[in-house]
């Protein structure tokens, strides 16, 4: 049963995608939407059935399906094979359910776009690729999904291709992730060479029993980390994600918030046995995660574009996940991945609905006071914002963030014998990030929904959009209750789910940690209220002229740095070499031959011309003399003959 359902899970959205693509232009928008939703819906149903099947089985049970051998050759083998275990269960549930909700939302959101078939084709193809990514039991097979989601992301960011900026953003996203992919590919090559296969179980076993040298493990982990960082838009690859907001909002919600960008997190969690061996890489990961979360939060604080705030917030939240992964808190990372998918999708979709109803106005300072015009959306947004900020007890975000922070607190890196890195510092950063999260998201809430009204809102949010929103609201609020902090009542459903596959990170933690973690978001909320929320806010806009602010607004200036460091030189160099240098060199040799032949030709009619070629005035008299002596053609020829005769005689006699 599972053997049939598992391929069907992937096939269902894939088939929907193919049908939608092929029948482009012939089906109505409604039919296209229905088809896509059916495809994703089927896979959602199947994934629920499969989860139930798996969870009702033994704790370490997995579902393995080998479809067909892909590459079997001496020294290497790879298969098209899938595996469902407890990590993938979490992922497929998130992908299909959130995906389904977003698809339903998009039917209404995109109903009058002429390219709707392309949109839904790409979206369902994305779901299929994402499922391949999370289900693959072979790293090479995973790579298909890995690149597939990148391609779909490219297609969807550049969906409105009439504007060159959109396609530029799409290409930027693809190029930057592609760099990561190249690194990932190198990692795969390294592992494949060492282990002879890319089957995850084989690879991990080979790493575990010391078949792979430690340096190779470190190297491989580093390569894979780079791939994951690029996919998840972490430092130093973070710049593509804000630009990627050029795509339709459902795309941003699905791909650039809920699922694709978390692929890196999933990959590292999947390969945690490998990373455990590579301590420096883990430390690097944690530090980069911490830096990213801080930087993302700071940048989000000064943005004025609604979607960009959310994008930077995504980067920041992904930073949390990487921080957790780096500290070995695998379960916490996955837990946060799940809750983040819920509340960030909710935020994006709500923002999308708001934007649609305010005539595509994305600047938060031109919006304002919208809670009167659209109370439902306001409530949904505030729900999402609370979850993001981690308002204690009532939101999912609180529980997952709490789990991460407790994991980080306990972490301890032994880099060398002398150098160690304590998790407490990182914990501090995480806490600061939590404060900033609450600050920036409620800044957004207060500016957009409170205060005096800016733009006029028209229309109504359709039923198709509100249903997914309410579902997501519920999930954002209640999704966290399944896993309580240690000091709370013992409700640990999520850990129980993952314990067999991911090592738990239980540690003794002081009780005040939870308290601090609960107070900090509230403090952030309070400060936001003071600054922007009160009827007469302290500041409407953070003074925009200060260099620091400008710097922060551009995301730490990384875009500019990259532009000057890589893009411009690349453009210049390609412009320089747009004509093939080698071509010129070789054609030039040909020209030279022709020139030589010309001069040879001239030599036949007399040295005179050659000497003229020299163009020296002093030789003129000699020319004249030569011309007087050798002017005749026949005689000149005869002279050659005589010369040849003399040369021949000389050669022969002297020989």
């Amino acid at each position: 049963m599972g053997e049939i359902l598992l391929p069907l899970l992937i096939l269902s959205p894939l088939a929907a995608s193919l049908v939608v693509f092929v029948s482009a232009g012939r089906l109505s928008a409604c039919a296209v939407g229905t088809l896509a939703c059916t495809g994703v819906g089927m896979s959602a149903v199947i994934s629920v059935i499969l989860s139930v099947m798996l969870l009702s089985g033994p704790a370490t049970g997995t579902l393995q399906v080998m479809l067909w051998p892909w590459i079997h050759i001496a020294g290497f083998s790879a298969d098209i094979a899938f595996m469902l275990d407890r990590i993938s269960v979490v992922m497929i549930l998130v992908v299909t359910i959130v995906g389904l909700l977003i698809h339903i939302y998009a039917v209404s959101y995109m109903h009058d776009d002429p390219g709707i078939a392309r949109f839904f084709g790409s979206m369902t193809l994305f779901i299929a690729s994402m499922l391949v990514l999370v289900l693959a039991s072979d790293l090479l097979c995973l790579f298909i999904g890995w690149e597939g989601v990148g391609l779909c992301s490219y297609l969807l960011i550049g969906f409105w291709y009439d504007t060159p900026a959109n396609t530029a953003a799409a290409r930027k996203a693809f190029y930057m992730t592609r760099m990561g992919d190249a690194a990932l590919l190198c990692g795969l090559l390294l592992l494949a060479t060492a282990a002879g296969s890319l089957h995850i179980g084989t690879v991990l076993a080979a790493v575990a029993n010391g078949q792979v040298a430690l340096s190779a493990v470190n190297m491989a982990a580093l390569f894979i980390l780079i791939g994951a960082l690029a996919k998840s838009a972490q430092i130093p690859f973070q710049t593509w994600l804000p630009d990627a907001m050029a795509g339709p909002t459902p795309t941003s919600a699905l791909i650039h918030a809920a699922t694709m960008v978390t692929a890196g997190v999933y990959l590292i969690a999947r390969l945690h046995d490998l990373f455990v061996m590579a301590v420096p890489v883990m430390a690097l990961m944690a530090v980069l995660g911490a830096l990213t979360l801080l930087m993302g939060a700071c940048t989000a604080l000064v943005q004025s574009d609604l979607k960009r705030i959310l994008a930077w917030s995504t980067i920041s939240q992904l930073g949390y996940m990487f921080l957790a992964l780096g500290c070995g808190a695998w379960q916490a990372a996955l837990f946060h991945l799940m809750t983040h998918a819920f509340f960030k999708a909710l935020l994006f979709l709500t923002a999308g609905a708001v934007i649609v109803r305010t005539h595509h106005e994305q600047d938060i300072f031109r919006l304002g006071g919208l809670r009167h015009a659209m109370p439902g959306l306001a409530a949904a947004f505030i729900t999402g914002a609370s979850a993001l900020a981690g308002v204690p007890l009532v939101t999912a975000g609180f529980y997952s963030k709490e789990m991460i922070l407790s994991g980080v607190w306990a972490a301890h890196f032994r880099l060398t014998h002398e150098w160690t890195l304590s998790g407490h510092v990182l914990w501090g950063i995480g806490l600061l990030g939590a404060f900033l999260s609450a600050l920036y998201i409620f800044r957004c809430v207060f500016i957009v929904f409170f205060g005096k009204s800016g733009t006029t809102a028209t229309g109504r949010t359709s039923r198709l959009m509100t249903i997914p929103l309410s579902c997501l609201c519920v999930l954002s609020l209640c999704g966290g209750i399944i896993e309580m902090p240690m000091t709370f009542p013992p409700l640990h459903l999520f850990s129980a789910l993952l314990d067999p596959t991911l090592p738990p990170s239980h540690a003794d933690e002081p009780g005040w940690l939870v308290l601090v973690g609960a107070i900090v978001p509230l403090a952030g909320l309070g400060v936001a209220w003071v600054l922007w929320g009160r009827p007469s806010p302290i500041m409407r806009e953070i003074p925009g002229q200060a260099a620091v602010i400008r710097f922060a607004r551009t995301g730490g200036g990384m875009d500019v740095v990259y532009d000057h460091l890589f893009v411009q030189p690349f453009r210049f160099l390609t412009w320089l070499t747009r004509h093939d240098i080698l071509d010129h060199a070789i054609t030039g040799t040909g020209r030279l031959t022709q020139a030589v032949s010309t001069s040879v030709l001239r030599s036949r009619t007399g040295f005179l011309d050659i000497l003229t070629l020299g163009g020296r005035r002093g030789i003129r008299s000699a020319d004249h003399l030569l011309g007087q002596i050798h002017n005749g053609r026949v005689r000149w020829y005869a002279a050659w003959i005589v010369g040849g005769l003399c040369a021949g005689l000389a050669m022969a006699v002297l020989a």
Partner: protein
Amino acid sequence: MPAFPFNDTVLLATVLFSVGLTGVLVRRNMVFMLMSLDIMLNAAALVFVGAGARWHDAVGQVMFLLILALAAVETAVGLAIILRLHAQGRPTLDADTGNLLQG
């Protein structure tokens, strides 16, 4: 026994040959060039005569006659061509001017 040693004959012939060659190379008048050619041919013929004398062989003289015939034919044909050129309106006997074929 021969009146002229073969080497001396060859020397003389070489000198004659060189004179003819120089004539061909130096003179511009086509008639003079033909005459120089004849000198060269005769130098060759002289070698044959000397060699015939060395080996007491009549073949040398036969060759001499043949060469003489050749020289006559060449001169005849050459003069005919010069006449034809004249008839076509080329006034000069200069071999260097008015070349149409070159390059």
